[in-house]
């Protein structure tokens, strides 16, 4: 029992080290992060202004509702982008930096290594999402009198578990294919973007795409966030979104770790665990 506790403590301290390193790196690239944040704000504004543009050209829409819905979609998608990027870079960035052999030689379980990446990604991503939402909302006279931001935040946090699981699965791609892995990760990310109803209701999609939407955690995260912010739904009324997220999370995390372990095994058998260049 004591050995188990010691091992767990060692693992958690190691994962803490990974979080700490990511903090140092983010601090190091803070100006780049600010520039990227500016770009994300511009991109989000471009999308939200579409609602006002439709009205101006004669379209009959509830501008406040559509603009808020688009804003939620853009912010949630930006958050997902951060999670995917951090996890995909677990391998790709280390390969580029030339540190990959050392990271994979360190006495830290892969689960805790990836957990360290995931925890930092969630913390950084959520903080960034709050800033993004606040800054963009200031540009529009949006009315959100019933908004339940705490419930939206919790739904997003629950959804993050599933995103981490899927992110871990995609992060293995650069490990098994140094040349094409990262690009394949973007294919997975792009698929989620199309099917999850980021900027439109899932119902507009063809049937087969709606079927994929059912297993995308982003679908439920977006529905939950919109219900909480636009309709003021309390957490208790969002069970329909939360239980699929919990199930997808419960499946995707162990599945992601298993896929990663198989990828690592493959890389070690075929000599793929080496730096780029």
């Amino acid at each position, binding site marked *: 029992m004591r050995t188990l506790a010691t091992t767990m403590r060692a693992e958690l301290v*190691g994962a803490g*080290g*990974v979080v*700490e*390193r990511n903090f140092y*790196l983010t601090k190091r690239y803070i100006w780049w992060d600010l520039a990227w944040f500016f770009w994300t704000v511009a991109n989000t504004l471009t999308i939200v202004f579409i609602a006002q543009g439709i009205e101006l050209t004669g379209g009959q829409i509830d501008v406040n509702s559509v603009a808020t819905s688009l804003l939620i979609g853009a912010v949630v998608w930006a958050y997902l982008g951060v999670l995917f990027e951090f996890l995909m870079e677990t391998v790709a960035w280390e390969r580029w930096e030339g540190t990959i*052999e050392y990271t994979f030689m360190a006495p830290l379980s892969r689960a805790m290594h990836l957990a360290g990446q995931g925890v930092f990604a969630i913390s950084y991503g959520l903080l960034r999402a709050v800033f993004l939402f606040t800054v963009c909302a200031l540009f529009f006279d949006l009315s959100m009198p019933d908004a339940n931001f705490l419930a939206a935040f919790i739904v997003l946090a629950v959804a993050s578990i599933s995103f981490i699981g899927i992110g871990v699965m995609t992060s293995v791609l650069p490990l098994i294919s140094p040349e094409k892995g990262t690009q394949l990760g973007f294919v997975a990310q792009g698929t989620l973007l199309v099917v999850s109803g980021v900027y439109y209701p899932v119902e507009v999609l063809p049937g087969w795409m709606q079927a994929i939407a059912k297993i995308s955690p982003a679908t439920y995260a977006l529905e939950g966030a919109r219900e909480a912010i636009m309709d003021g739904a309390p957490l208790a009324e969002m069970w329909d979104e939360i239980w699929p997220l919990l199930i997808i999370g419960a499946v995707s995390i162990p599945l992601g770790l298993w896929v990663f372990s198989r990828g690592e095994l493959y890389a070690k058998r075929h000599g793929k665990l080496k730096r780029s260049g």
Partner: protein
Amino acid sequence: MRGRPVGPDPVVWVDRLEKVFDVPERDEGLRAATKSLVRRKTREVRAVDGISFEIAPGEIVGFLGPNGAGKTTTLKMLSGLLYVSGGEARVLGHVPSRRERAFLRRISLVMGNRNQLQWDLPALDSFELNRSIYQIPRADFLALRDELIELLEVGDLVRKPVRQLSLGERMKVEIVGSLLHRPQVLFLDEPTIGLDVTMQKRIREFIAAYRRRHDATVMLTSHYMADVEALCERVIVIHHGKILFDGDLAALADTVAAWKTIAVVLQNGAGDLSSYGEVIHRDGDLVTLRVAKAETARVTARLLAEQEVLDLNVEDPPIEDVIELVFAQQATQ
């Protein structure tokens, strides 16, 4: 070749170790490029081909061979970074590929052309990550970190982003990072590559001091024979994945190069000395002869008796020449 036995508890034990890679290859041209999209051709490369050896605790062994001989592949298998294709390897009693914590915390692999330190961070920040991952108590960490920093004189360097350091400076801070957890086994892959001679000497002295102080076992690959001569009593020579020699460095010269060189400066200029041995170099009055080891004493006596000798030196052949000869002999077999 089994290699020499080193005792009941070797730190490194390797038995008929193999690593085979499938390397993709294609012919040149558009047609071949298009064809390779559908049907990929691969070639089997035996990077390590059934090698066996043992290394005793505290031993420092030179692992020599030309590029592509299988040195780095072997070190990676011993560090658990590569799975073996055949045979067995144990380091400190552990199978490296199992990644057991007790194993990983007691070894370190330093690769001269790789880095464990983040390029854009000061080395001190990367050391902190190692402290967390290797579970080093803070007091021990600070004491050893500062000791290593002092020994390698890198106090001013560890606060700068690694990318601002020269190659030699970077190598020194990389070594600090690799030793913070006091590894018992060091795999050093070209630790002095690209460094100037002063820096090479400093790194060599440091490795020797670390080994003495911590009774560490060291396996070293280097293309600089000065590293090998200064640090290793034993060498393992590998070529095309096979071990060609495993034994004392001195014995390598005795076994492979059964000659010595006699450098002689004569009072009356350099005449024809071919009757004494093979003239391999001539520079003014200085003549270098190659003679069979068994003949060295007799030839030296003859030179002193028959010539007006101003200076005479008898030397073993340079280790570079010996190693080259090993490879040449293998190529002709």
